């Protein structure tokens, strides 16, 4: 299979043909069989962390990583690097001016309407950063114009904007394509990430003692969120939501289990206007006081709210004169040709060449690819534009260069050329104001490459990240003297902001607690269902009736609140259907969804293996047996077996990999609490309605994994008080209520101390756990049954009392550790 580039001219063609790395790439590619290429492509894709994780069945996969890297030669890179350095400085200076003295407006270099009609120009941000940089980091979109030159066409100030993907892509290549990698000397990315990490750790004051950095992300569980979690883990900084933050004493603090931690820097992903509910959009999910903490120079925000003005594209038509005016230099990196419709000549030019432009509305942020509109749509849009032309900007669509893409089918002839697609680059740069040397810009020697068969669609700006699926390329900047530092080594060398247990955000503890609870709930429901299915297949009517007991337990385990008498056998089928119905909010699928929601919310706390198991669980949800047809018992059994196995694996993995003790503690608490609660409810379902048959008792012992223990102690005879002793009181049986209560007591003793002087010792949680243990200790199981081995009302009362105490314990943990104040955490504006 052969590979070629489409050069813009002969000179460039010769340049590439003489490049050793390019020769190596071509040679290597020709040697691989199509099957081998396919295998490598699959392995590469598998390396992507969110692979297989979709958020709804139709959504996956989000991103495909192409096996063919995008090479950038040294001369090309030097040109890009110097151009980007200047451009980043320029944009920083423009922001300082527009949010400050407005010389650019007063000297008529930028028409004021372009700024004043822009929804992204935020007046509360005027003079926000003082003398500190307005734009510590920038992601620039670059394509090639018709002359073949690199040309910037878009800016992204809302980060990380794909930075995490770049890292992930490079790691995937390092792990997958050894020979290809080794033969091509390229610049490493580690230095750039280390610099970013230092920037965040130092904040404004260079004093990183006990201070914290974070990525301010949103609540949606989308592809962007996974990028943030990945990057947070790599940079060893916290992943925070607005609800984790609080303003106090002139700065922002992160609410953690052991109190408030000062926050010195944020990589900001939340949209500009939703960052501060006090000064900006009141409905925003950010934190009141965020602007104030930047104003008081206590928070380094990368980047501060207000920078979206750049992302709007409004400045593109004016960059060259701005550069002359502010930096007294010609603009090095060409900017895409752009028009401001408020200018009559520009408007006429747009009207004559509509097919070549992307139109943007500054008031709403909407954009249109004009070549994709039909005549009528374009006419309607034009009418709308003429009402207020000054609010529109048009950006010329670039022809872009084409690149080979690895997507040949197996059946293609061996000498087939790889297909070509158009591509764009996103480059990242950091800007720092050094005391001695002034402003310095560092460009990452690598980039996020995106390719598509439709070059125009690639050129829509997308400040929200990449929620459309796309094909990505790792971009290799060729370097003769490639640095020896590998990314992985550097990850170990980094100066760490240790994420000790005290740094666990309360929100995370909350999710982990519920993750523990839902995981256990799911486990018990699945086990009981398996047992019920076995009983149902019996020909004995009495045994079938026993199965109804277990089904009843399953039905109410997820809070259906239906405490009516156990269903009759005739209803068994109906009950099963209801439990397996994905639309039932109390069904098995719903528990699984809740489990996954909580797991995904704290995904950054899990090892990669755990992520993998969670992905499998997710797949199980999507392959849930359909109930329209008669459900096959065997299919149901298989599904349940798989779910039980996978979630058992989650516990195992977490016990082995989660080093953060408080993290694990909250999940553990959730697990034990839920197991105690559900076991009480199971015993209630089995014993307190009618005397259980032997088949049911045996099923109960089996589902609690205690059949062997029981047989060892009591031989074959099934004796109700003995079973109660084993499952309720015995604190050496891992599934007994007694065992859970003993564990709860142990764990509550180790809960982090809240503020000194608050609360008595022992804490409320510990006292409740002690009460539970004491209640079980004073019991004699024989007393709970009459001479016929029928349960007395005492048993039901006891089980009820235990459940009450357990619920109180859950509420108490929630109040003390998750809500943080004894007040509702609900925000309101007035």
């Amino acid at each position, binding site marked *: 299979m052969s590979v070629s580039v489409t050069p813009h001219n002969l000179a460039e063609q010769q340049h590439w043909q003489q490049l050793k790395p390019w020769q190596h790439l071509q040679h290597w590619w020709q040697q691989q069989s199509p099957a081998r290429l396919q295998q490598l492509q699959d392995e590469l894709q598998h390396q992507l962390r969110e692979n297989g994780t979709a958020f709804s069945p139709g959504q996956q996969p989000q991103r495909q990583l192409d096996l063919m890297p995008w090479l950038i030669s040294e001369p090309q890179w030097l040109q890009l690097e110097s151009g980007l350095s200047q451009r980043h400085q320029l944009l920083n200076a423009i922001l300082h001016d527009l949010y400050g003295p*407005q010389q650019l*407006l*007063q*000297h*008529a270099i930028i028409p*004021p*309407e372009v700024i*004043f*009609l822009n929804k992204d120009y935020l*007046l*509360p941000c*005027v*003079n926000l950063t003082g003398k500190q940089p307005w734009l510590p980091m920038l992601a620039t979109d670059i394509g090639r114009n018709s002359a073949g030159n690199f040309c910037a066409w878009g800016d992204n100030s809302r980060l990380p904007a794909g930075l995490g993907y770049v890292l992930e892509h490079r790691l995937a290549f390092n792990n997958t394509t050894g020979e290809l990698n080794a033969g091509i000397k390229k610049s490493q990315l580690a230095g750039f990430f280390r610099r970013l990490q230092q920037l965040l750790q130092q904040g404004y004051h260079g004093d990183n003692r006990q201070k914290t950095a974070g990525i301010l992300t949103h609540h949606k569980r989308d592809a962007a969120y996974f990028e943030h979690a990945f990057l947070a883990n790599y940079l060893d900084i916290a992943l925070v939501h607005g609800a984790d933050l*609080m*303003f*106090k*004493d*002139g700065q922002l603090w992160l609410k953690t289990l052991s109190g408030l931690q000062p926050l010195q820097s944020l990589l900001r992903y939340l949209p500009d206007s939703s960052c501060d*509910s*006090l*000064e900006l959009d*009141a409905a925003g999910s950010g934190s*009141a*006081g965020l602007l*104030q903490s930047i*104003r*008081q120079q206590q928070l380094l925000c990368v980047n501060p709210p207000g920078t979206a003005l750049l992302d709007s594209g409004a400045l593109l038509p004016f960059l060259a004169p701005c550069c002359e005016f502010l930096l007294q230099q010609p603009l090095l990196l060409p900017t895409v040709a752009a028009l401001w419709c408020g200018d009559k000549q520009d408007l006429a030019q747009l009207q004559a060449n509509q097919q070549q432009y992307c139109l943007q509305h500054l008031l709403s942020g909407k954009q249109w690819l004009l070549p994709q509109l039909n005549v009528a749509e374009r006419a309607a849009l034009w009418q709308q534009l003429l009402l207020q032309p000054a609010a529109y900007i048009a950006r010329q669509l670039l022809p872009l260069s084409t690149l080979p893409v690895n997507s040949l089918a197996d059946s293609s002839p061996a000498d087939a050329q790889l297909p070509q697609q158009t591509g764009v680059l996103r480059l990242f740069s950091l800007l720092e104001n050094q005391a001695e040397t002034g402003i310095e810009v560092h460009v990452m020697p690598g980039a996020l490459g995106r390719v598509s068969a439709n070059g125009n669609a690639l050129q829509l700006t997308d400040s929200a990240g990449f929620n459309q699926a796309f094909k990505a390329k790792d971009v290799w900047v060729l370097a003769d003297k490639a640095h020896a530092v590998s990314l992985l080594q550097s990850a170990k060398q980094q100066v760490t902001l240790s994420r000790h247990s005290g740094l666990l955000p309360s929100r995370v503890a909350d999710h982990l607690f519920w993750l523990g609870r839902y995981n256990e709930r799911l486990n018990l429901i699945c086990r009981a269902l398996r047992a019920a299915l076995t009983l149902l297949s019996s020909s004995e009517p009495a045994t079938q009736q026993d199965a109804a007991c277990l089904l009843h337990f399953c039905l109410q385990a997820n809070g259906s609140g239906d405490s009516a008498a156990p269903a009759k056998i005739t209803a068994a089928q109906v009950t099963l259907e209801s439990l397996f119905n994905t639309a039932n909010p109390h069904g098995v699928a719903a528990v699984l969804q809740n489990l996954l929601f909580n797991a995904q919310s704290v995904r950054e706390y899990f090892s990669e293996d755990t992520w993998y198991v969670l992905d499998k669980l997710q797949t199980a949800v999507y392959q849930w047996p359909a109930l329209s047809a008669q459900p096959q018992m065997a299919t149901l059994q298989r599904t349940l077996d798989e779910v039980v196995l996978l979630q058992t694996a989650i516990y195992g993995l977490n016990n082995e990999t989660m080093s953060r003790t408080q993290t694990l503690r909250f999940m553990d608490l959730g697990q034990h609490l839920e197991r105690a609660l559900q076991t009480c409810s199971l015993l209630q379902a089995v014993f307190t309605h009618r005397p259980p048959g032997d088949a049911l008792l045996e099923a109960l012992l089996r589902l609690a994994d205690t059949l062997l223990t029981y047989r060892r102690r009591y031989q074959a005879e099934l004796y109700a008080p003995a079973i109660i002793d084993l499952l309720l009181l015995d604190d050496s049986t891992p599934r007994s209520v007694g065992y859970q209560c003993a564990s709860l007591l142990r764990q509550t003793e180790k809960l982090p101390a809240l503020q000194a002087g608050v609360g008595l010792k022992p804490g409320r949680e510990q006292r409740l756990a002690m009460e539970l243990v004491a209640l079980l200790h004073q019991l004699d199981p024989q007393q709970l049954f009459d001479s016929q081995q029928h349960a007395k009302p005492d048993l039901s009362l006891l089980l009820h009392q235990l459940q009450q105490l357990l619920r109180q314990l859950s509420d108490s943990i929630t109040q003390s550790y998750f809500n943080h*104040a004894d*007040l*509702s*955490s*609900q*925000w*309101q*504006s*007035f």
Partner: protein
Amino acid sequence: MKYQLSHCTEYRYTHMVANSYNLAWLTPRNLPYQQVEQFDLSVSPAPSELQQHIDSFGNIQHFIHLQPPHQQLSVTARSVVQVQARHNVLKIRDGADISELTHYLATDSSSAALAARLCLNASRMIPLQPEAKALILPLLQAEKNVLQLAQALNQLIFKEFQYDPEFSTVITPISEVLQHKRGVCQDFAQLAISCLRSVGVPARYISGYLQTRPPEGQPRLVGADASHAWFAVFDPSLGWIDFDPTNNVLADEQHLTLAWGRDYADVVPLKGVLQGSGEHQLRVAVDVIPCNRTK
């Protein structure tokens, strides 16, 4: 005229609240016709943090944080302010023609012109509505002078719109004000601004107060016992001229200027967010008393 000014805002909450963050635009501005001799902002319970900075319009903005749980919050601004007569009535006939103004706005980019051009567009609370434009268009037939146009509009709103404190609490969407022909001073100011901007005249929103007790022999002005609001229109040579549509007058010695912006939202006297649930009761008391009368 020298005034003693006090503006007290009190919130009572049905439940305890905590972490209340507030922004206040309660400091009178220093202006050619107004000098602030004393100013004091007191907050009870004692704030965890009280900071101030100058906003993009040159107003003083306070940031107030109350951390501990509380059930009542009061913010009191007290000041002594000297106000001079502006004699703008005499200048109105010297106002620029609309065409002159339009030309000026299209060509000039001095900082004065930029401030005016910022107040030419729709803003968050002041959309440019066709009904508002329809209200001002007939006036435009007769008045080519921008200030006389503003004065005619001032009069029109005063005559055709009913002052009704029961109708709206603080602020009502302009469409509703137009529909019911009633509102309070904030509504009238925003309505006038919407009309003027829709025909290309820069107009801004002014938050302030009126003298509470009228000089002897003169009637008490409406809106005197609370915050007041009016609007200003830009003239290329005379600058911003203030009109009070609630009283059909030009703002003068009895008007005390707090802050200005594009609309109410830019200069709310006191707004905030807090942690907690439940209802709150609001009580506002404003006193503007000429100093020589307090003796």
